[in-house]
């Protein structure tokens, strides 16, 4: 088997440098550009809805979801093709990708917390304080409820 040595470390060449590799670079460039243009188009769509006042919350939520998925696709192409992680051996890929799974918990837990805070703020919004009816006759226990 063909070997190469870098500073005493023996590795086996991953990819023979071919024109195939260059073709893949251009293909990825086009994919990244098209996806970015799609994201911008969706961004302008959301913006135009803000402007016209015909604001559909469900639609905007869905569009934002699509934009996030498109960005994740871009991230995949950058890491897999441009950074050549897709060409590395599986064990190496796993040591990089598996720790990132903790982001699933990280994102869900913290955004859930954020939404919870917003709900509490809405409930006890200082600008519109909750009005308590002052009862004229004190209750039996004598305490203010």
């Amino acid at each position, binding site marked *: *088997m063909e070997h190469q040595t*870098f*500073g005493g*470390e*023996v*590795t*086996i060449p*991953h*990819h*023979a*440098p*071919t024109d*195939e*590799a*260059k073709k893949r*670079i251009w293909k990825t*460039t086009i994919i990244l*550009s098209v996806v*970015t243009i799609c*994201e*911008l188009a969706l*961004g*302008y769509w959301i*913006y135009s809805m*803000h402007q016209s006042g015909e604001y559909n919350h469900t639609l905007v939520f869905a569009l*934002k979801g699509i*934009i*996030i998925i498109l*960005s994740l696709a*871009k*991230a995949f192409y*950058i*890491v897999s*093709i*441009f*950074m*050549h*992680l897709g*060409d*590395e*051996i599986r*064990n*190496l890929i796993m*040591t*990089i990708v598996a*720790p*990132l799974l903790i982001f699933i918990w*990280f*994102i869900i837990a*913290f*955004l859930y*917390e*954020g*939404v*919870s*805070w*917003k709900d509490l*703020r*809405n409930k006890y*919004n200082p600008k519109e304080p909750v009005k308590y009816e002052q009862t004229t006759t004190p209750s039996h226990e004598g305490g203010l409820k």
Partner: protein
Amino acid sequence: MAQAAAANTKWWSGGKSPFNVEYGKLMMWYFLMSDTFTFGAFLIAYGTVRMSSISWPDPNHVFNSFPGAGHAHLPLVFVSLMTFILIVSSVTMVLAVHEGHHGNKKGVVKWMFWTIIGGLAFLSCQAWEWNHLYHQGAWWGRNPFPNADGTVATTNFSNFFFTITGFHGFHVFSGVIINLIALIMAQTGVFEKRGHYLMIEKVGLYWHFVDLVWVFVFLFFYLV
């Protein structure tokens, strides 16, 4: 892709790198993974605070200017330019790595040069944007932009914007410096003497990571 390494190679039997990469490249990957957590923590903190706010400034009304366009209302245009500059500089970087595989010194130097130009162009854009926002009254602890619902916004928006784009910009800046050093080393024939251009690959990983982070900064600050 010509896969020279057979599937049944015993990677852990000794005598070779079990991950089939040399030390520096492996460590660059682990550094980038840890940096992903740093940026991830920043962006998730931003997301949490934004989620917890009843309203938030509309990015289309904050980032709506373009150099030389005066008071024209141009949302998303300038940041699109910045995004494309970074994508293009990522492509020139990957072409430099490609030339490095061929051991083509001239090609490496050419594409590294264009990558550095792209990085400097991005930094100039960011400097312009920061300066523009500063003169509109935005800075750490100061936020002149009202919430989308018309109420007075907290300073959270500016704080997160300047911290996260600043941290990213610092990465771009250090990336440009590292690229410059790699360019000089390639030009003076250091890699040629070594017999390989692995340093260009490692520098390239860092540069692509900077582009990768921008994908998410662009997404969460400007688009959604």
